[in-house]
């Protein structure tokens, strides 16, 4: 069961990712990415991370991707234009990607002592997660909240119409 679920949702992930690359309109890419996010949420569940699966759907698929979609619509981004490519990106980038993938894959395959996942494995409960989060890692938690606050301020400052040079309402 686990295997079938894994194969199906891993397939969705890969399909979504490849589709993201192949599509020319950004909105289609965004939607493919949502597919990837949701599939990943299922995979998290299979690995026993129930809280993370929920968070993935709520935060990533439900908030971040919606934000992306808003921006695409706001900027009225159309189909991708044909622009000059970057020679160095092709010459240097692709071999780099291949190398990265190769190295990591080799390392993974050579690794011994990796276990397996099973449906009957214990699920990490939210209670256990929050216990560690709010006792041992309270400081990073609070700092993260400050980080989010700063991000909000930054986003508002950057996206607002600045000192009014461009709009000339005065």
């Amino acid at each position, binding site marked *: 069961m686990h295997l079938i679920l894994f194969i199906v949702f891993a397939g969705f992930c890969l399909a979504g990712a490849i589709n993201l690359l192949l599509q020319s309109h950004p909105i289609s890419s965004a939607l493919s990415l949502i597919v990837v996010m949701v599939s990943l949420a299922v995979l998290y569940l299979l690995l026993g991370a129930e809280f993370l699966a929920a968070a993935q759907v709520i935060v990533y698929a439900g908030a971040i991707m919606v934000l992306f979609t808003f921006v695409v619509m706001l900027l009225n981004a159309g189909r991708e234009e044909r622009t000059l490519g970057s020679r*160095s*990106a092709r010459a240097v*980038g692709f071999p780099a990607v291949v*190398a990265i993938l190769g190295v990591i894959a080799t390392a993974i395959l050579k690794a011994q002592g990796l276990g397996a996942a099973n449906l009957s494995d214990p699920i990490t409960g939210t209670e256990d997660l929050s216990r560690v989060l709010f006792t041992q890692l309270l400081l990073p938690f609070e700092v993260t909240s400050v980080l989010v606050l700063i991000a909000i301020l930054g986003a508002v400052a950057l996206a607002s119409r600045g000192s009014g040079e461009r709009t000339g309402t005065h």
Partner: protein
Amino acid sequence: MNALFHLWLIPLAPFAGFLINGILGRRLPKWLVTTVALLAPLAAFGVVLVAALGFFGIGKGFAPVIASLPFTQTCPHPWIDIGALHVDFSFVLDQLSLVMLLVVTGVGFLIHVYSVGYMSDDEGYARYFSFLNLFLFFMTVLVLAGNALVMFVGWEGVGLASYLLIGFYFQKKSAADAGKKAFIVNRIGDFGFLIGMFLLLANFGTLTFSAIGAKLAANPGWQGGALTVIALCLLLGATGKSAQLPLYIWLPDAMEGPTPVSALIHAATMVTAGVYMIARTHILFDHAPFALGAVAVVGAATALFAATIGLVQNDIKRVLAYSTISQLGYMFLGCGVAAYSAAIFHLVTHAFFKALLFLAAGAVIHSMDGEQDLRKMGGLRKKLPVTFAVTTVGVLAIAGFFPFAGFFSKDAILYAAYTQGASGRVLWFVGLVTALLTSFYIFRLWYKAFLGESRSPDAHPHESPPSMMVPLVILAALSICGGWIGIERFSAFLAPSTGLRAPDAGSASLEPILSIAAVAVALLGWLAADRFYRQRPVRPSQLSAALPGSYKLLVHKYYVDEFYGWTVVKPLIAISTYLLGWVVDTALVGGLAWLLGGTATFAGALLQRWQSGNLRSYAAWLAAGAAAVLLFIVVPWSTLWPASLNLIWKMAGH
């Protein structure tokens, strides 16, 4: 040894004077500058006098300050102490340095007093006195030096002071050039001195004069060879400092400096440092007869050479300059026949009458408002009676008339030369001819400047102020009685430090005969000068017209300067311009700088292409970097190398 007596006070006073006048002089009132400047040499002279009186036990109830000479004082802290090389700061007072110090500080003080009057209108009054004090400091260090290195400090220092004072009127190009010439030519001599010092160190392991003397005294059989080389090197140094052939060329040019400077440095004291040095190291020269002979030959040749040039010079100071070179030649001749005390005796008397002549010339120049050309002078006898009187004393002294100072000392040298052997006779003859020429040119000067009618009727010469006249009178008195001590007593006094000359094959009656010969020759010179310059004033121009070649040769000083310019200066300048200027400076150094800069620029230009502003290429390079890091971390490189070797081995079929 009396611990209360401090030799270092002797150089200290002038050094303090130099510092005070040098640093604060411009801001101090003139009377203060003068006081400081005069106190310095006076204090030094005072200390020396106390030492002298103390030694002789004179002092009325005061115990002799110095129980015996030589008296050495060494600074407890060593100067150089590296491995085998050990050099101290040590001062030695013995008979030789005592005599020399009396001359240096005494005549120095008189000249300082004279300068107060002579330089009173000059802008650089304080600077002048600070340099003069600096000179005195270094000269006393040189004289008191107990080892060759301390002497070298003084040696170089007087060269520096000389440069500063010759180039005193530095706005004049000729003065600045003369200063440079003096310093550079001195440097060539100093090179000889340095090599001599190195060889001394190599052969004796020490630079202290007393130690060297002791070693040589203990080995009487050690002659020639290395000692000759050392002595010749030291001789080279002496010829530079004392303006002998071939390094005399700086002295005539040095007349660009103020006249009191010429009197002090280039007549009485600095130029005699070479003679002093040879007398100081006389044991070395005694053991190197070839070098000693070279000293004598150099001295005699220079004496004659310079005297011939002095015959036709028109500048009053140039005549005296060549005269100085010639008289220094006499001193070298004296050293060269191992009559060191005779040479020192002549050094002392020469200091008196040459300083006198220079200062008198200064008075004449001062009264003629800067005119130095003899052809424009004349008839000053009536206008400057006191100056005339003292000059006459000086002229008679230098010509060697009895009973003036020059007679005794010159005679001692000529006698010593004559009794030296066959070669000595030749040297004696050269000395005699030089005496004739000396008498001629000095009387020529006397006639042209003082007698006859004035050749520049618009001039209004006036007598100099008392600050200038008093030293002149004192020096004149010394020129009269300076020689009365007699060579025998003088030698006896100096014997502990300069050695006693073995009495030669010479009868007792020989000396008076030789003295009469010398005086006769001097008289002959006077008569000739009288004939030429008083009775028939047209004779000189007729003679020079009759022998134009020789006249030109003499007037142009045998073209020696031109010769040196052509053989030494021009090649050096060519090397500097072409080799060092073009090749080394422009090509090598410039090329190197260009290369470094060029590499940076080139690398920058190359790397600039990376900053394309293109997001994707940045991303690509990021990915590449990440891949590289991953590869570096993950791949087990240490096992890969033998594994790959194994693979190659296997593929090769083993």
